[in-house]
């Protein structure tokens, strides 16, 4: 059976590895491109958010290549992303692609449904196979996160930004090739060494910026015009609020993130779906940790982030931390983002200079 899945950040390395080992033929989802987006925009509802359109575009590209099963995550609201699997399926069927869609609902909400679908996926090779390779996949997930956060730390310091970007891509390839827990750990070490061997100016004190918002646009460079790279190359250290491994732990396997939500309570004492409440809480946390600024990323018409954005001015004022919100959609151009980032960074540098002078 030919299987495929949505593309998000670096997760494809882990997901494709797992499915190959489970005995499926994986149709590799291509990196989202202009074509992906325009395919998605053509068939998606006008006001669906950017992730919906990119993922729909990816599906259309992989069914052209012959994918028969699409696997994705579900949800139970109030964020509408929980319904995307169902609506994607209906749109694909309406267009005449008879794909099978396996929507994995959160295991804690619908345990029976989860087990049934898990059984279907695991059946070809059995449960021990899943446990064995699941462990390696989890290790890869952690390795990817470590390498990525190291990249964020070193990129603003690196003298040649091209070189460090290249080292990172090579590091990812090493992790992708690793085939046992031991190899993953070795690949991780090698990747870190490659990043650290890039000549860097360790006396430079970069601006510290927190990156918050909706998970897909935060994790997927194609959706946010590679904002982490843009910031890193302009001398800012980016701390991302969401990493794959911790998100999987907190949201799929357990109800985590209670501390972040607790920080949001003085401003927003209600779960509003998606990452709305987290976004508010994370600004508070970044302010307390002494970050220079926060950038909130959200797809256009994202309801939870709109709620968060309308509360943001109050949080920003109270905690004395600048926040810039970028709403992204298919019309967003890279030059526009660059202009806004540069202006934001200029303001933050001036603020820092003022603080140092006084």
């Amino acid at each position: 059976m030919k299987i495929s899945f949505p593309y998000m950040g670096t997760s494809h390395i882990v997901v494709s590895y797992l499915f190959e080992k489970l005995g499926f033929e994986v149709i590799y989802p291509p990196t989202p491109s202009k074509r992906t987006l325009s395919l998605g925009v053509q068939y998606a509802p006008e006001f669906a958010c950017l992730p919906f359109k990119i993922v729909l575009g990816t599906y259309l590209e992989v069914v052209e290549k012959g994918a028969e099963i699409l696997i994705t995550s579900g949800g139970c609201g109030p964020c509408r992303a929980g319904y995307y699997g169902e609506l994607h399926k209906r749109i694909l069927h309406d267009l005449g692609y008879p794909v099978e869609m396996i929507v994995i609902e959160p295991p804690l909400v619908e345990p029976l449904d989860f087990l049934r679908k898990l059984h279907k996926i695991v059946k070809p090779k059995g449960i021990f196979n899943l446990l064995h390779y699941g462990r390696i996949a989890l290790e890869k997930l952690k390795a990817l996160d470590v390498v990525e956060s190291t990249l964020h730390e070193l990129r603003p310091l690196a003298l040649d930004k091209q070189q460090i970007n290249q080292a990172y891509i090579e590091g990812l390839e090493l992790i992708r090739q690793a085939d046992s827990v031991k190899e993953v750990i070795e690949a991780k070490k090698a990747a870190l060494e490659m990043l650290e061997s890039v000549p860097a100016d360790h006396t430079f004190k970069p601006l510290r910026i927190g990156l918050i918002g909706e998970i897909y646009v935060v994790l997927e460079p194609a959706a946010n015009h590679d904002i982490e790279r843009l910031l890193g190359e302009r001398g800012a250290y980016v701390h991302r609020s969401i990493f794959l491994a911790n998100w999987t732990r907190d949201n799929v396997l357990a109800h985590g993130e209670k501390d972040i939500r607790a920080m949001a309570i003085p401003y927003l004492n209600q779960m509003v779906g998606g990452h709305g409440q987290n976004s508010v809480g994370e600004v508070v946390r970044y302010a307390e940790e002494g970050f220079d600024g926060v950038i909130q990323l959200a797809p256009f018409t994202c309801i939870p982030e709109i709620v968060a954005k309308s509360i943001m001015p109050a949080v920003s004022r109270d905690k004395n931390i600048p926040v810039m919100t970028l709403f992204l959609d298919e019309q967003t151009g890279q030059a526009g983002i660059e202009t806004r980032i540069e202006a934001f960074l200029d303001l933050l540098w001036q603020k820092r200079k003022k603080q140092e002078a006084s």
Partner: protein
Amino acid sequence: MRVGIPRTLSFFTLYPLLKPFFDGLGVEVVVSPASNKALLDEGVKDTVNDACVPIKLFHGHVVALKDKVDVLFMPRIISLDGKNTLCPKFLGLPDMVKYSVSNLPEIIETRLDMKKGKMEIYRFLYRVGKRFTDNKVKILRAIWHARYKFSRYRKLLLKGLTPEEAFTCLHTGQEPPHKEQSGQIKLAVLGYPYTIYDDYISVGLLDMLREQGVRVYTAEMVPEEAMKRMSKKLPKNLFWYYSNRVVWGSQYYINEQNIDGIIHVTAFSCGPDSMTNKLVELEAKQHQPKIPFLTITVDEHTGEAGVATRVEAFVDLIKRKKGII
């Protein structure tokens, strides 16, 4: 003591419950004026630009009320039917308003979450009543009275009255005028009560249709048991109360009422509606025979002429298809 209730969003669902309740407590109820341009402009000034028209309008209603009342009633409505939540903007509404509009009076943001059980609505009213009086008997009597009026209101809506007409009936105690819709074609006009019954946002869509000889049916005219039946038809329901009612209503009219066409009224950039709209569109398309479907998107710049042109064209097409003209 005067309590202010904005005339939008949950107003069309909850007002007939709240009005007699506050009357019973001896509290004066002040309702903001019907939506108009000045109100909307005021709202647009205060709201984040990414919000939808109804939310912007809500801010406008709050601004119109804030200097005239002692308390603003703005409950945090989580769930109205015990299963589905409301749009996330409803969940965060009190917070959005608090941090966007300055110089607000005291706000009642009591939580209403029907997932906690059927009696929650009475516990909710009790908690609200506690704010105004310590007299338990008075609160309970007010709740009893409100409950009666509320169930009458729902019956009036089923008869095809608009909320405004139903309010007048309840207020004056008159029997509802016998309303038999006349017209050659039957259209389902689906959308949230706060867009289709607010004549300013919907630019008088319902009257426009009636003038063209259309019998108009809305989601509020669908009997509760039919809604329940329809809720079991979809493999996966949406998560939001009002959106689900639109979807189930469309199922009812498509499959059981032999409707001639569907008009879906949605607000620009409405998040839940991006799902609702596509779902209803696909359902209408997949039905045999296909049901004509029209989407009307409204925002703060919607003009009557633009909507009228589209609606007239749609109605003419259906009439031609049926051989009436």
